[in-house]
């Protein structure tokens, strides 16, 4: 009986390591979306403040666009933010979805850090996000001219992710008619 007590630590370790081993093979930032190839679920969200533009599904057609889900309480969004500002400066069309956030907090956040979004919708209850299968922030959907989701990025867009994955895809989508 006493032996078992001394064996417990290594048994636990085996379990933990097995978990890590499996966990490692899943890249936490790649999550296939049910939506790939399908149109975005319809939503129409109010703006963060009266002087800004709100966001509806109909705004996301015509040109390829990045739909970036963020929140003022999200730490990783702050890490992603400079990259988005750079993309905006390069002329990339980005729409923002402020998820589970008070409109004033979201507006304050954009005011303090800079606003990379052409339009921003406030999803205070998180309902629109749930329809899209958002699991956390930040998350980004690449939407094509016809409003269909073509790619989903879970976690921040880093310069590497942009250069290696999203930029080529955006170029391809722009070339599509």
């Amino acid at each position: 009986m006493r032996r078992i007590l001394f064996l417990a630590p290594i048994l636990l370790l085996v379990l933990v390591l097995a978990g890590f081993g499996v966990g490692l093979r899943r890249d936490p930032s790649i999550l296939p979306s049910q939506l790939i190839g399908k149109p975005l679920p319809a939503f129409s969200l109010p703006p963060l403040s009266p002087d800004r533009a709100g966001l509806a599904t109909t705004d996301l057609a015509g040109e390829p666009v990045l739909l970036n889900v963020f929140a003022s309480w999200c730490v990783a969004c702050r890490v992603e933010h400079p990259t988005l500002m750079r993309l905006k400066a390069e002329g990339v069309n980005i729409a923002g979805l402020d998820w589970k956030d008070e409109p004033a907090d979201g507006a304050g956040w954009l005011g303090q850090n800079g606003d990379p979004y052409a339009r921003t919708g406030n999803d205070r209850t998180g309902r629109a996000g749930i329809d899209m299968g958002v699991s956390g922030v930040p998350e980004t959907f690449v939407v094509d001219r016809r409003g269909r989701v073509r790619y989903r990025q879970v976690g921040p867009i880093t310069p590497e992710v942009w250069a290696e994955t999203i930029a080529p895809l955006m170029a391809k989508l722009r070339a599509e008619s």
Partner: protein
Amino acid sequence: MLAEVGQFALILAFVISLVQAAVPLVGAHRGDPVLMALGRAAALLQAWFVATAFVCLAASYVACDFSVALVAQHSNTAQPLPYRIAATWGSHEGSMLLWVLILAIYGGAVARFGGTLRESLQARVLGVQGLIGAMFLGFILFTSNPFLRLSPAPLEGTELNPLLQDPGLVSHPPLLYLGYVGFSVAFAFAVAALIEGRVDAAWARWVRPWVLAAWIPLTAGITLGSLWAYYELGWGGWWFWDPVENASLMPWLLGTALLHSALVLERRGALVSWTILLAILTFSLSLIGTFLVRSGILTSVHSFAVDPERGVYILGIIAATTGAALALYAWRAPALRTGALFAPVSREGGITLNNLVLVVLAATVFFGTFSPVFIEILRGDKISVGPPYYARTFAPLAVPLLALVVLGPMANWKRDRLDAIVRRVRIPAAIAGAALLIALLAGGWRTLVAVAGLGLAAWLVAGAVAIPVRRWWAGRAYLGRSIRTTPPAIFGLALAHAGLGLLTLGVTGVTAWHQDTVLNMQPGQSVAFAGRTVALQSVEMVQGPNYQARQARFEVKGPTGSYTLIGERRAYASSQTTEAAIHVTPLGNLYISVGDEADGGVVVRMWSHPLIMWIWTGGFLMAFGGLVSLSDRRLRLGVAARAPAPVLVPAAAE
């Protein structure tokens, strides 16, 4: 040329570490003094070669040798010299090199100063250290070589992440690594004891200072990290329960438990196999922390360089070291005889309780940190665990532990009576009660949590002060002499426990009473905030050495007088950082962070953080207490041991 010298030194160090891993273990097994001496020489040589490699890399940074890929990726000529040096460990490869350097220095120290140890024990400790060193040197050489060349060499390098260009970075990672890696010595001692199958007084006397030597920099490093995040990240927070912060907190919790259980082992010869298990687990959690930061298994703000392939390698190292150690533990530990018995109410009993709570706290943090990984595997869901989880699990466990901290040092060894202990703490209890009452009268019932926190802080500080005072009171007939002869360890204990009290004070203040607001300010405008009047005087652009900044100047009139604060929003080549304007007083900080321009003014976010500086004061005081304790002659490394007969010998075969 330098890079090649460094590369060559690293390869030599790897080969030597293989020798160090094998020869002394064989020597100790055969009782061959020549082989054991070879182990000591190997440890010293390994330290020299790793140091050479590290200096070569640092020199490449100083000389701006952009033909070295790592240098080109993390520095440029405009970067100030201190940050070019700090960039040496600002990258993954460089920080792993620092890791190995510290490991090799500790190994060299055991070889150099371990002369009073039993020779076979020293040889086994060095052998285990050599094994760990070989694994990590192999990791560096095969997956993350810092000395790769670029051809053609670029004329100018890119940039170190601007968040890392701060005095905090110069000392924060080395301190943390001193702590993490320091626990490798305790680990090596534990494994050596398991191989030998015996734990004696000399073993216990040796382990405690090493644990302390790791615990001090870890405590200081975590405190510094929290302080750095507070003023550099511009989020106005001091602890975020981020996976990487948790990675440093878990070894700290277990290391603190180990520090206390080693004390029991040293004084009373009890908790033998428990202490060994703690030593193994503490270092394992340090390794898991490294894994977490380097593998990208969890998304974190801190993960500056992640790569799943490296994660697999580190996972292999964890499996090899911890797995082997725990297997050895399962095999050999049952044969270690348990030490002296003690009553539940006694100092040993108190420390056992402290250990249990600390281990459960560490488990709570572990579960919170890694449950996203496991839940995803089991259910396929992605979840994230945030501060609410810790508020519900960590705090309810930590608060009773804090309340019990005062009682432990008041209890006698072996056996004691609860009523006697309570009588000894009546003065601290009265002081805490008075503080509670004053806070209650001032704050009322609505701030009950804050009131309780203030009472707890007063209880901890008064209880800590009571430790030396009680001693002096007992010897009051010869007061001068009894103060002079108080061992430093007593002061260390009192300082560390008082630090915990100050930490409680700070956490309480900032949790209960912090305020914040976001607003758009025009130059000349002034607002009232948290009992102060804040006026924005001017906003202008200024040029720094490698950045441009929008600088805002504030005039603040507060209850403690008027002062000027300057906040900056800095634009570096690749990203932006916020230099918050912070006014620090013992009663509370005013924290202003400047955002982007909007409608001719700037967006300003203000926080009032009452009592927050006591969090870091407390943390540093704890580390200082450890330092004072380490200076105690009785603990000093290498003090000739007039060892009594071994208190513990292997139990006879059952």
